[in-house]
């Protein structure tokens, strides 16, 4: 386990070094074109999807598909979506699962990682291996499925949280960081009579805000995006998270099994509504992203990959 997590390296400064040759115009042009192409490849689809979701049905019909040039902005599609219970409920389910799941996962992982950060403690090696071996062996979908249904978790929200609550990767990232905290600090607190819980809460966690935030964000994104667990365990359509709606309604263009006749009734989904659902699914990731992006220091990943 290497302890490289979260060491911030100085950024490469702007500009050319004095010994560097002036870039050739052709090279500059080629590089510029490439960069523009890459940025457009990522942002272009998002742009037209957001625009289509904000367009009137008249505009969408006239263009005959995705809208590239704005022509009147309307929130019609969003109003329709949220006037119906199916998508609103799915948004609620996804939000609830994400919030509760992230709290559980982050809490369990921080406690677990701290408990594994002390080589030589009682049962340290077997407990550590119970986590590390998760990297090398996956029990398979079917035994996990049988376990979840055996515990009576099928069709409960717990089935979306508990089976994937612990990620060995995140635990190792946290543990590497905890182990890089100078032992003297913890020892002095211990001599002053602080309990382990107090040390974790008052000393270790405040020193690990950034890494904890990143791990919590990884968990949150995982829960929000998770599709397979829900497909496997949730039969009751009223408990569907957004990812299942997205698949059913947007990818497969199947009408949703809606109790209320509305947008999501028998009528085929309009393109604007489809795109609005895509936007709703993207937005949380886009909101969290800038807050945590500054923590993506290169060190996190090195520590994790080498860990």
């Amino acid at each position: 386990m290497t302890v490289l997590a979260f060491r911030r390296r100085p950024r490469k400064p702007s500009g050319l070094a004095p010994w560097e040759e002036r870039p050739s115009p052709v090279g500059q042009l080629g590089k510029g074109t490439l960069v523009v192409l890459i940025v457009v490849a990522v942002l272009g689809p998002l742009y037209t999807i957001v625009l289509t979701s904000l367009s009137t049905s008249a505009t969408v019909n006239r263009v005959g598909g995705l809208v590239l040039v704005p022509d009147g902005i309307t929130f019609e599609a969003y109003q329709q979506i949220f006037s119906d219970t199916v998508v609103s409920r799915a948004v609620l389910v996804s939000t609830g699962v994400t919030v509760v799941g992230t709290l559980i996962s982050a809490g369990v992982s921080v406690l677990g990682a701290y408990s594994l950060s002390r080589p030589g403690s009682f049962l340290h090696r077997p407990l550590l291996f119970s986590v590390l071996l998760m990297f090398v062996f996956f029990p398979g979908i079917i035994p996990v499925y049988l376990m979840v249904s055996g515990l009576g978790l099928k069709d409960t929200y717990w089935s979306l949280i508990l089976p994937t609550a612990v990620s060995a990767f995140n635990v190792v990232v946290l543990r590497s960081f905890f182990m890089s905290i100078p032992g003297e600090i913890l020892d002095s607190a211990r001599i002053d009579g602080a309990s382990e819980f107090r040390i974790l809460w008052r000393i270790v966690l405040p020193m690990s805000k950034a890494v904890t935030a990143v791990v919590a964000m990884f968990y949150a994104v995982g829960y929000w995006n998770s599709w397979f667990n829900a497909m496997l365990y949730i039969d009751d359509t009223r408990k569907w998270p957004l990812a299942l709606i997205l698949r059913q309604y947007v990818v497969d263009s199947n009408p949703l099994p809606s109790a209320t006749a509305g947008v999501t009734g028998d009528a085929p989904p309009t393109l604007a509504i489809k795109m609005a659902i895509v936007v709703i699914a993207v937005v949380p990731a886009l909101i969290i992203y800038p807050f945590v992006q500054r923590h993506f220091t290169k060190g996190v990943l090195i520590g994790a990959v080498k860990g």
Partner: protein
Amino acid sequence: MGTLTTKRAARRGGTPPGPAASPHQPSWRAQLHRDWPLLLMNLPMLLLVLGFWWIPALGNLIAFQDYNPYTGGITGSPIIGFTNFALLFQDPQFLRAIVNTLSITAFQLVFYFPVPIMLALLLNSLASARLRAFVQGVVYMPFFFSWVLVVAIFQQMFGGAGLLAQILRENGREAVDWMTNSDTFILLITSQTIWKDAGWGAIIFLAALSTIDPNLYEAAAVDGARKWRRMWHITLPGLRPVIVLLLILRLGDALNVGFEQFMLQRSAVGSEASEVFDTFVYWSGLRTGDLGYGAAAGLFKGLVGLLLIVAANRVAHAFGERGVYSRS
């Protein structure tokens, strides 16, 4: 202070604590008395890991049974030995899953693996730090989208009713639905993987690039080495350890080509092109109800995957790299 110093030495990455390192290890009772808060902290994680990982791992016993959840369950179903495994190798669909999985891994090694490296080189060569940060922010983003979303976006771009088809039709050309074309499926999934993951994958190479001593470049430039020569003789050798490590790890992970991506597109392109290990386990086990058979396929994959990872780590260690685990 004896145990304290040992612990501290261990934390510093010194000699690992073991019976040899500390001959006066306290009795297990004393250790338990000392460390019970740590064990308590470990408990929630232990319960989850045992309950949803290691106990199910033992549940793979059903791979050796004629498993029937209604009449026998895991305790009452008859043991049939390796029959399920023998049947697997006569199942053309299973063989197809193996072939598809390995071809996809090979294809992506050639056409996906170098992309993050090239992207990192491009990003690193941008002179303006601001532009670099902006492009990085943009290319990392799709990593945080779900596969459902990525498939939905690709469908809107390249599907039968997508943007590309729309533009082609407007220009009087014939439109192709790339989302349902099984011949080009491997291209489709590789471009999806590039779109979603290449930016994020570049981070590790950018980190490696930032560790190369800038004085080397200056010295080479003074000695008359032009840009491309500097890249060939300084940058690429600097990246070599990371490239070798990731290449080996990818080979150890050869049976994993992604799961949701294939489940989501299976109905569109058909099982012939899209069947991989994981989808086979799902369809043969959970969909048809032959759980023992599906579990056998899953266990086979798990065990071969385990061997591959162990082998890959051996190779990594032989190259002087650390691999996913190290012996310390």
